[in-house]
């Protein structure tokens, strides 16, 4: 007896071909997928960031010693005194600018964005935002936290979404400068362990732990002065003409659920 003719056998290759074509189309145009997942993804990211933040502070509270706590209290008093001096200098600066009719430096224009997907692991630190070209974002636009700390930069862009490479992503690097005596300039790359490394620093540059690291402004779209991190250790191999600085970033990609993307910054006069 002959096998009965079944239209299903002929339909199946067309179904598979259609699915493959749909996948390729969506990969090329990234159409709709972000819009579909966003309503569910944003609350999930916020929930997991809250859990990570809670666990982080719980672990820190278990680890802190009485001496470290004492040091933090004395640092707080010192920062309070410095804040008073900074406020006085700002008022004086504003007065002097007014007297000589100096043009004001305008602030940064930012766009608020929610994180809808993260890939924070030992080998890659990236996340996806729900803003894209339509909201004024450009490739290479810097991303900062709500505290103004540099988090990363845009590496992929579509009309309503973008992918950010975190400052600790091993596949990316940014131009930075250190707020030391000689204003050392270098290129910072992410390394495994959620840290940043600055290589090829000449040995005669004076760098020490706790030096602030900021963006240098040498990259397109990234203004200078955005805080990146603090120097943790400085090391030099024997017979090497260069030093290496390990920087601890001040932003933590795991614990944030929303960021600001800088879309324009006015240049200095």
């Amino acid at each position, binding site marked *: 007896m002959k096998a009965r003719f079944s239209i299903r056998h002929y339909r199946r290759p067309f179904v598979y071909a259609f*699915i493959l074509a749909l*996948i390729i189309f*969506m*990969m090329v145009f*990234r159409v709709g*997928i972000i819009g*579909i*997942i966003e309503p*569910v*993804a*944003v609350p*999930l*990211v916020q*929930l*997991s*960031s809250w*859990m*990570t933040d809670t*666990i*982080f502070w719980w672990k820190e509270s278990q680890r802190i010693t009485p001496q470290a706590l004492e040091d933090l209290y004395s640092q707080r008093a010192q920062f309070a005194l410095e804040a008073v001096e900074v406020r006085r200098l700002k008022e004086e600066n504003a007065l002097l600018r007014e007297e000589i009719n100096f043009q004001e430096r305008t602030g940064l224009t930012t766009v608020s964005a929610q*994180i*809808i*997907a*993260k*890939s*924070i*692991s*030992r*080998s*890659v630190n*990236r*996340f*996806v935002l729900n803003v894209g070209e339509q909201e004024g974002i450009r490739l290479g636009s810097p991303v900062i936290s709500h505290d103004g700390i540099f988090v990363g930069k845009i*590496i*992929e862009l579509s009309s309503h979404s973008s*992918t950010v490479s975190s400052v600790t992503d*091993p*596949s990316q690097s940014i131009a930075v400068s250190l707020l030391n005596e000689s204003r050392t300039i270098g290129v910072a790359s992410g390394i*495994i362990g959620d840290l940043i490394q600055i290589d090829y620093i000449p040995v005669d540059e004076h760098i020490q732990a706790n030096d602030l690291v900021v963006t240098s402004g040498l990259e397109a779209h990234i203004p200078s002065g955005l805080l990146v991190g603090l120097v943790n250790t400085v090391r030099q191999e024997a017979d090497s003409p260069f030093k290496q600085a390990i920087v601890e970033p001040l932003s933590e990609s*795991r614990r944030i659920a929303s960021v600001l993307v800088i879309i324009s910054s006015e240049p200095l006069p």
Partner: protein
Amino acid sequence: MIQRLLQAVILCLLIVIQVSFIDALPFPFDRIPLVLIVAVYLIQSSNGARGWLWLIGYGAILDMLHITMQVTEFLSYFILAVLLRLFAMHVITNRSVYGMGIASLIGLSTLTLMQTVLLLIFQHEQALLIPGMVSIHMWGMGWSIVAFLFLFPFARFLTQNIHARNYRSL
């Protein structure tokens, strides 16, 4: 048709939970390969008939989001899906928790190998990241064993109830 649509919705939900929730959890919980675990269960329990397209879809969505360091995840997951399907049909025909555990270990080993090869071919300057990637998949193997040990009886109970309900409605 409705069943296919429901499967697509469940797949989307699982992927969103994977990339938006699990991947954002603190270590080591961010290593849980939820989509892979569910896909392996489906592939093994249906003898390779179902679940393999889920892995291909997952790879495609990872490529769309550009959140991994690989040039393409679609190729790795495509090969993984075909391999797991062939294994379920001809090699690991055991549908017990042991068969599923072994299938998930083979799957993750294959994925590690594929991604290492792709990284060496297309991004050899990032070869230092390979130990980190292997570490992620090792944790994934551990989590998949734990998941199958503790959730397998529940999953089987659920699947059997759904099949019984479908049979009664006929």
